[in-house]
């Protein structure tokens, strides 16, 4: 890797970080929440979530069922059924599903956002906006970030709920008599600490999924050929960012 490429890489991270900061400030100030912003955000949210809600729910349900079945069956062979339940719920709902959801949203919406922003840059739209005195922060970026975050949150919640239901049915079938044991296990797994960590992780994922593509898109120039490069770079950075968040959360929780 040439020094220029390395510098460019680091610069990309720096841009993303700066943008994130700016967006955070913007997001936390109520002045930004104009009706137009809300409308745009809603639109973005719709495009991000509506079509995939049911398919993604089903997919996560299927994945959960398969993993839980395998794990519980194996563990039952060793007489460790209850421990398996605790283990599988922990791994699925606290680690695997949030990450998977974030990756999915990143794949779908993140790439779309990056492309959109890059195209805006290429087409000169952003320059036009700047010329008109319109703040792209309000019109384009923040709504997308909000939408992405909310969609990550929504999809995570739904897939985790599906995982819990699948776990119950895998372990106890249709009988209601395992409920107290299940409840006990849930209580063991979802301590305050764990709940807090997953909440934070979801927020971070959500922010990363939008901010990094936007920053990547902004790095495009008026040259059309720069668009794919920008998007590519952005997606890779997003992937690493998600991984980093995950590793950090693990480190904080278990080490």
């Amino acid at each position, binding site marked *: 890797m040439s020094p220029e490429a390395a510098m460019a890489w680091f610069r990309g991270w720096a841009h993303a970080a700066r943008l994130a900061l700016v967006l955070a400030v913007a997001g936390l100030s109520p002045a930004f929440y104009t009706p137009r912003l809300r409308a745009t955000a809603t639109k973005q*949210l719709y495009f991000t*979530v509506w079509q995939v809600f049911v398919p993604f729910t089903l997919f996560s349900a299927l994945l959960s069922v398969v993993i839980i079945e395998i794990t519980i069956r194996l563990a039952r062979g060793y007489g460790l059924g209850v421990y398996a339940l605790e283990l599988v719920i922990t791994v699925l709902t606290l680690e695997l599903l949030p990450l998977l959801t974030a990756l999915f949203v990143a794949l779908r919406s993140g790439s779309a956002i990056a492309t959109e922003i890059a195209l805006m840059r290429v087409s000169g739209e952003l320059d036009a906006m700047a010329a008109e005195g319109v703040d792209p922060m309000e019109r384009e970026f923040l709504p997308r970030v909000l939408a992405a975050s909310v969609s990550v949150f929504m999809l995570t919640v739904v897939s*985790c*709920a599906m995982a*819990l239901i699948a776990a119950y049915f895998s372990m106890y079938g249709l009988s209601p008599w395992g409920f107290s044991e299940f409840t006990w296990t*849930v*209580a063991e797994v*979802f301590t305050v600490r764990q*709940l807090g960590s997953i909440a934070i992780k979801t927020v971070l994922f959500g922010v990363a999924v939008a901010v990094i593509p936007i920053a990547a898109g902004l790095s495009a120039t008026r040259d059309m050929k720069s668009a794919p490069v920008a998007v590519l770079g952005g997606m890779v950075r997003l992937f690493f960012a998600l991984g980093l968040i995950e590793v950090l959360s693990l480190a904080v929780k278990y080490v």
Partner: protein
Amino acid sequence: MDKEREKEPGRDGAFTAVPRNLQFRVGLLLGFTLLIAAAFVLYVLYARGVFEPTQRLTLVADNVEGVSIGMDLSFSGFPIGRVHKIELADDGRARIEIVVPVRESRWLRRSTIFTLERGVVGPAKIRAFTGNLQDEPLPDGAERTVLRGDTSEEIPRMVATLRSVLENAQTITANEGSLQASLGNLRLMTQRMAGPGGALSGLLGSEDEAKKVLASIDRANALIASMSGVARKLDAVIDKTDQRVYGRDGLMDGTQRAVGQVNGILAEVRDSLKRVDRILDDAQQVSGNAKAATTDLRALRAEVDASLRKVSALVEEINRKWPFERNTEIRLP
């Protein structure tokens, strides 16, 4: 599918189709998700017992190694409480605070025994045993001493025992120890045994004793020899008596009138003995090499050949019935 599309003027003339009830749909989804999230949170809170009354139980132990917060208190294998806090009291003993939901507290009575077990590997287990379920219920905030069983504690004890055994073995086999003394005695014994006095001196302890014993043995032998001499003399006497009594001019002859019959019997016996002599002679002649056998073998062979010739016809007939077979017929003596 009735999606009324609103054509929004996009930039650069592109159009994105947006349904009319977009906001409704988004709202729907959002509401649904929030509902699930809320339900989940409530469930977790319920699971963690936030909503149910609990009572506290404190267990006091010397050593709470292996106990962690969040561990279960089990009764008959079912978890009925959770460790909430572990702390060190002022008297140096550890206090385990356990939270028990009130609905499970009916298993805990005043007389319940609590144990803390720990294997060599793995976490500890806190268990409750209730003998009498009709006893008074355990009051809230009760303090109980927990019985500890720790197999990993046995190991130091085992090691200590082993060490003492080894020490004992060492003292026994030490240079001044009893074992060496016994071995020394044994060595002395074997030396004596191998010495001039032999086994005897080994047993008796000294050569002189051995010599004494040997001397006495010799005397006994001499006594026996002399006794046999006496016995021989006695034999001779008996012989003479025999002769005198039974001989020709003996006692019996002398008292012929009284022993007339006996004489007769004796004469018969004499005859029999003579006959026996003759028979014995013949027997010897027959069975022994007293006289050379008067056998002319050539003549014998000739005679046998002659008689065989007479019998040959018979043999021929038999041969016809039973042909000769070398294996069955010729037997080595």
